[in-house]
């Protein structure tokens, strides 16, 4: 087991390094000079600056050094959690991240809770409903949930719950009330995905012969689903949940932009518009690190949820 855990941790660190390398190659190595891009975003033509000014800018961000030197330098800084300085805000990127991480985590946490509750409820109802129409609708609902763009879902929520009913504010980041609509926006596609996977897994479980035995002992269909079905569906659900958690920052980009909330998502959206290369790189790295960490956790708890995994490994 120790060997397994250490192996997974080494793989995770390797993946993180590779993610960093991908961001570096795309942003610094491929054609397209960051300084020219930055000036273009500020509506300044690179030609209007003297060669000396350009060289100064290049030197300021270390872009005049050989590429392997830059790579090593960046990696060394990263190992010390120094992510450089923002091109447009002139503050350290790590400080920006620290400020914006909290709101995104709060939003993501609420969204995941809602997604688990919503997705689980839809799946359980879909397999235990008696009426054919209800079963059909509950099974088709998730497909619709993943088909509508998340920002459209968000706009609908604003239209209904902010403008018509006035229950929650449409914009802002202060207080718990501002958290609700963006969290539901993020949770809707996630709940739909979770419901699809859970429904399939529950269907498979309910088709197994032992279910007949359990039912014969007098357990209702609903009880079979909640007591036995969900436990069997847990490994598949944890996989999907891992995917969803890893995508939190990406989902937050839309929700935070739509609801004008402070957070990592809106930070990266603004940084892309301003061509603020270090900030974009940093947020992508944070998102990558989140994915890697969550995959690691999923790998580690998988054997606990499904004893068959360890048993099969022992049997070789």
């Amino acid at each position, binding site marked *: 087991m120790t060997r397994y855990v250490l192996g997974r941790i080494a793989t995770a660190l390797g993946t993180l390094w590779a993610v960093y390398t991908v961001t570096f190659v795309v942003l610094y190595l491929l054609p397209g000079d960051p300084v020219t891009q930055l000036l273009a975003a500020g509506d300044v033509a690179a030609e209007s600056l003297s060669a000396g000014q350009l060289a100064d800018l290049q030197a300021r961000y270390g872009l005049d050094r050989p590429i392997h030197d830059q790579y090593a330098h960046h990696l060394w800084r990263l190992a010390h959690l120094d992510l450089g300085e923002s091109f447009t805000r002139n503050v350290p990127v790590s400080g920006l991240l620290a400020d914006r991480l909290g709101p995104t985590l709060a939003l993501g946490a609420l969204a995941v809770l809602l997604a688990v509750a919503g997705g689980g409820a839809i799946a359980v109802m879909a397999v235990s409903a008696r009426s054919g129409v209800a079963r059909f609708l509950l099974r088709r609902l998730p497909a*619709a949930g993943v088909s509508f*763009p998340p920002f459209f879902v968000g706009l*609908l929520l604003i239209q209904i719950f902010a403008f018509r009913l006035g229950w929650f504010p449409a914009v802002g980041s202060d207080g718990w009330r501002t958290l609700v609509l963006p969290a539901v926006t993020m949770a809707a596609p996630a709940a739909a995905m979770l419901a699809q996977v859970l429904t399939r897994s529950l269907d498979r479980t309910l088709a197994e012969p032992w279910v007949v035995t359990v039912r014969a002992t007098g357990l209702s269909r609903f009880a079979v689903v909640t007591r036995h079905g969900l436990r069997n569906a847990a490994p598949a659900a944890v996989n999907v949940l891992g995917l969803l958690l890893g995508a939190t*920052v*990406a989902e937050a980009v*839309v929700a935070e932009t739509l609801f004008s909330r402070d957070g990592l998502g809106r930070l990266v959206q603004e940084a*892309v*518009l301003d061509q603020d290369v270090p900030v974009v790189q940093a947020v*992508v790295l944070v998102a990558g690190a989140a994915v890697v960490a969550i995959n690691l956790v999923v790998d580690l708890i998988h054997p606990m949820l499904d004893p068959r995994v360890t048993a099969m490994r022992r049997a070789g």
Partner: protein
Amino acid sequence: MTAAVAVRRRAGTLPAGFFLLLVAISAVTPDLFTPYDPYATVPAEKLLAPSAAHVFGTDELGRDQFTRVLYGATHTIGITAAAVGLALIAGLVVGVLSGLTGGWPDIVVMRAVDVLVSLPRLLLALLIVTAFGFGAVPTTVAVAAGIFPGLARVARAETLKIRTLPYVEAARAGGASWLRSAVRHVLPHSWAPVLALALLDAGTAILVISTMSFLGLGPPPPAAEWGGLIAQGRDHLVAAPWLTLLPGVFVGLVLLSLDHLVRSLGRDVP
């Protein structure tokens, strides 16, 4: 399973396919479906509710919203087709070659693909447009980069299954070169599942493209992509909710039809 069986097996497949066909045609020749000019402003007819003359109503400058959705399709469908095509070619080449080669090159390539898979698609796309700008070509590359790793994985898995089959061995023994056996014998049998996945990815591509233009990274005005149209309606949510609602439902229907079609073609998709 043949397409005919698939159509009979599931209700709604025919309408879904027909709708997608219409959308595809309207992307090529939008003027066939509407008499209006998408950029002609008619201040007297601003923010009209949907009617027989203006099916989706008109926007704040009096432009016909349905016309704008149709012309937006040219952008969305064009980039989607280009991105999926690009990812399909790259995925097949990388997947088949990697699977056939085996050994350490295969391991290295597939580890790289794993890394790309682990990055959320939207963030990968944002990374690429930051480096190359917001035009149509960078957007295409950005969307293709998110789709390609999944296709490469499936192509490789199919190749691994096929390359040990006796007929491939026979071809090699009969003197077919390595490249010839890849192109003539492995590729024709490995692309079907890859194509099914690519069709599903077209839906993801549409979502990513419209999300990018919602974030302000789409084509510059007055051109409008679906995501941009939905986002612009935001300013008129109270006075003219149809400006957001109808294009949004339209995009949802396109994606729902795609999803339905792929499932009907008999592939178990997640």
